[in-house]
C-alpha cells in the first residue's frame, strides 16, 4: 500500500472519528453527553496513526537501496571490450566499413608492452594482431585511409636508441612490414599523427638541446618530408596535428617555459610553417597527467581543445578555441571542469568528450554540437581517457575502466541501441522497491533540507531585514499575500548570491532551479494563505518555510545521486 493512500485513509478515519464523536449529542434519557469520549477516541486514533507512520517510515532507510544508477537516456548498455594498460596517454578507436578498429598498448610492465590492433565487427573481436611485442612504447597512432588500409605509427624507446616506426596493412590481416621513420640517440616523445587519405602526417617532440616539434610525412611507405617546426629555447612538447579539406596541415603544441605553458598554433604553407600563434594557456599539471591537445578541422575552422587552469581555480577545466582562416583565434572559452578532451571523429561540427569530475571520481562527459552535456558513465566506477567517433547520427564513445581483477578495460556506449529505461528509473527511483525508495528519499531529503536551511541563517536574516524595510513603504505593505511571498522568494534568491556564508545545493540546470523556486513559492503561499497576521514573525516564518521547501526540492537530484 502506498504511503499516500495510507495517509489519506488515516486522515479519513480521524475525520470520521471526529464526526462520530459524542460531543453535543443527547442520550436516550435526554442528557447531553460530554465531549471527552470523542476526544479520547481521536487522541487514541492519532497515536495509533503516528506509530503506524513511524513503523512504515523507519524501515525505509534499511529497505531502500542507498544508491541508484542513473542511466543516460537514449544510450545503450555499457559494453566491456578488452583489457589493456594505461602506459600510453591514449588508446585509439576509429571506424570504417570493415568495422571498428582499436589500437592499444597491452601489458603489465611498461618496458614490455604489446602494440595490439583489434578489429571489432558486430560487437565481437574479429581480428587481434600484435604489431610490436615486448617494447617500451611512448605513444602510438592508428589511422584509416578510407580504402580499407590501416596505418600505424609508434614511438618506442630503448637503451640502444629511440625510434619512430610505421606500418600499414589491410583487412583481412595478411602480415605487415615495418618502416623506420626515425632512429635517433636523442630523446623523442609525444608522437601524434593524422591520416589524410594515403598520407600519414606525423609530429613529435625531439630533444635537440631544447625540445623542438618535428614533422614528417609518410606516403606510399616512404618518408616524403621531414621538417623541424619550432626553434625556441623553451620546451615544445605535446604536439597535435590535423589536415583540413583543402589539404592544409594544422599543428598545435604546448610551449613550456618560465612563464608557464602556452598553447601555440601554426599551419604549413608553401613558404613553410607560419609564425606560432598563442591561442591560450595550458597547465603543467595537465602535462604531468598526460594531457594532450585535441585538434580538429571543420571547413575553414580549426578547433582546439585542451585542459588548463582558469583564473582563481586549481582544478583542470576544458578550454575550447576556434581559429578561422588560420589566423584569427577566438578567446579561450571554458567548457566544463575536466581534462583529456577529444573531438568526436566524423562529425560535421565540433563535438567533445572529456574526462569530467563526478562524486565518485572521473566520469565521461559528452557535449554534442549546440546541445547540452550528458554524463555517459553509470555507477561508481571511475572512467577515464575517452575516445569517440560518429557514424551518421549515431555516436560511439569508449573509455577505460579500472578492472577489478587488475589492469584496465576498454568499455563503450552508443546511442544506436538505446537501453530501455523504466519510468521509475527515469526519475531516479529504484524500480525494484519504488515506494521504499520514495519514502527514504522523502525522509532523508527533508532532514538534509533542514540542515541546509540552518546553514542559510545569515541569508534568512539579511532577507528578513531587507523585506521588513520594504514593508515600511505603504505601497508594498498593501499588496496581496501572493505578491508579498513572490517578492520575498525572489529577494531571498538574489541575496543567496551574495557572499554570505551558507551551504547551497548543487545546481542541476535552469529548469530544475525554476521548478524548485516555483514549488517553494506556491507551497509557502498555500500554507500561509489563511494567516491574517503580518509582521517580522510572519516574515521569518514565511522565509523559513520557503527556504525549507526550496532546499528540499533542490536537494532531491543531489540526494538521488549520492
Amino acid at each position: 500500500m502506498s504511503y499516500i493512500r495510507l495517509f489519506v485513509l488515516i486522515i479519513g478515519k480521524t475525520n470520521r472519528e471526529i464526526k462520530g464523536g459524542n460531543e453535543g449529542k443527547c442520550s436516550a434519557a435526554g442528557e447531553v453527553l460530554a465531549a471527552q469520549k470523542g476526544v479520547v477516541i481521536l487522541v487514541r486514533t492519532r497515536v495509533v496513526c503516528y506509530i503506524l507512520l513511524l513503523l512504515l517510515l523507519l524501515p525505509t532507510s534499511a529497505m531502500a537501496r542507498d544508491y541508484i544508477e542513473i542511466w543516460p537516456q537514449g544510450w545503450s548498455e555499457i559494453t566491456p571490450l578488452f583489457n589493456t594498460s594505461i602506459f600510453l596517454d591514449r588508446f585509439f578507436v576509429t571506424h570504417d566499413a570493415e568495422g571498428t578498429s582499436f589500437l592499444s598498448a597491452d601489458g603489465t610492465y611498461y618496458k614490455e608492452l604489446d602494440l595490439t590492433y583489434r578489429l571489432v565487427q558486430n560487437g565481437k573481436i574479429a581480428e587481434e594482431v600484435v604489431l610490436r611485442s615486448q617494447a617500451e612504447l611512448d605513444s602510438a597512432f592508428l589511422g584509416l585511409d578510407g580504402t580499407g588500409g590501416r596505418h600505424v605509427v609508434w614511438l618506442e624507446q630503448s637503451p640502444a636508441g629511440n625510434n619512430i616506426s610505421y606500418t600499414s596493412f589491410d583487412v583481412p590481416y595478411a602480415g605487415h612490414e615495418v618502416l623506420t621513420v626515425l632512429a635517433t640517440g636523442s630523446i623523442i616523445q609525444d608522437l601524434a599523427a593524422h591520416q589524410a587519405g594515403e598520407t600519414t602526417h606525423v609530429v613529435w617532440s625531439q630533444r635537440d638541446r631544447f625540445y623542438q616539434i618535428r614533422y614528417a610525412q609518410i606516403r606510399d611507405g616512404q618518408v616524403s618530408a621531414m621538417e623541424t617546426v619550432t626553434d625556441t629555447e623553451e620546451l615544445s612538447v605535446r604536439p597535435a596535428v590535423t589536415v583540413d579539406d583543402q589539404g592544409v596541415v594544422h599543428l598545435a603544441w604546448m610551449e613550456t617555459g618560465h612563464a608557464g605553458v602556452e598553447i601555440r598554433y601554426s599551419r604549413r604553407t608553401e613558404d613553410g610553417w607560419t609564425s606560432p600563434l598563442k591561442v591560450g594557456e595550458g597547465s603543467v599539471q595537465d602535462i604531468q597527467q598526460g594531457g594532450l591537445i585535441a585538434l580538429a578541422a571543420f571547413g575553414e575552422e580549426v578547433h582546439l581543445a585542451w585542459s588548463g587552469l582558469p583564473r582563481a581555480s586549481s582544478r583542470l577545466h576544458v578550454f575550447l578555441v576556434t581559429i578561422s582562416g588560420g589566423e584569427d583565434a577566438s578567446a579561450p572559452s571554458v567548457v566544463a571542469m575536466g581534462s583529456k578532451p577529444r573531438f568526436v571523429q566524423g562529425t560535421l561540427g565540433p563535438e567533445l568528450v572529456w574526462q569530467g569530475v563526478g562524486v565518485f571520481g572521473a566520469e565521461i562527459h559528452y557535449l554534442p554540437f549546440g546541445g547540452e552535456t550528458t554524463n555517459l558513465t553509470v555507477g561508481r566506477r571511475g572512467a577515464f581517457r575517452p575516445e569517440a567517433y560518429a557514424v551518421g547520427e549515431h555516436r560511439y564513445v569508449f573509455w577505460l575502466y579500472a578492472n577489478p581483477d587488475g589492469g584496465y578495460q576498454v568499455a563503450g556506449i552508443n546511442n544506436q541501441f538505446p537501453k530501455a529505461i523504466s519510468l521509475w528509473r527515469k526519475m531516479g527511483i529504484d524500480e525494484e522497491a519504488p515506494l521504499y525508495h520514495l519514502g527514504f528519499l522523502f525522509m532523508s531529503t527533508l532532514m538534509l533540507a533542514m540542515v541546509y536551511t540552518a546553514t542559510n541563517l545569515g541569508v534568512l536574516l539579511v532577507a528578513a531585514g531587507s523585506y521588513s524595510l520594504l514593508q515600511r513603504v505603504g505601497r508594498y505593505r498593501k499588496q496581496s499575500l501572493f505578491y508579498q511571498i513572490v517578492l520575498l522568494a525572489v529577494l531571498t534568491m538574489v541575496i543567496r548570491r551574495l557572499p554570505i556564508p551558507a551551504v547551497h545545493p548543487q545546481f542541476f540546470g535552469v529548469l530544475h532551479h525554476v521548478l524548485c523556486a516555483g514549488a517553494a513559492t506556491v507551497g509557502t503561499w498555500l500554507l500561509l494563505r489563511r494567516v491574517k497576521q503580518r509582521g517580522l514573525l510572519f516574515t521569518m516564518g514565511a522565509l523559513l518555510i520557503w527556504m525549507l521547501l526550496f532546499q528540499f526540492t533542490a536537494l532531491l537530484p543531489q540526494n538521488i545521486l549520492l
Partner: protein
Amino acid sequence: MRIKPAWKSFASAVFIFLGGMALILASFALAGFPFRGQVPPQLIWVEVALLVLLLGIPLFR
C-alpha cells in the same frame, strides 16, 4: 476565531512537500534526469531583473 487543528496543518505541510517532490520527479520523467552543472552567470541577472520588476509593479499601479 476558528483555529485550524494542528494535525490538519501538519497534513497540509506534508502534502505540500509531497507535491513538490512529485513535481520535481515528474520533471525528471518528462525532461530527463538533470545533469549536474555550474550556475550560468545569466541566471543571476535574470533573478535581479525579476526582483526589479517585482519592486516596480506597485509603484506603477
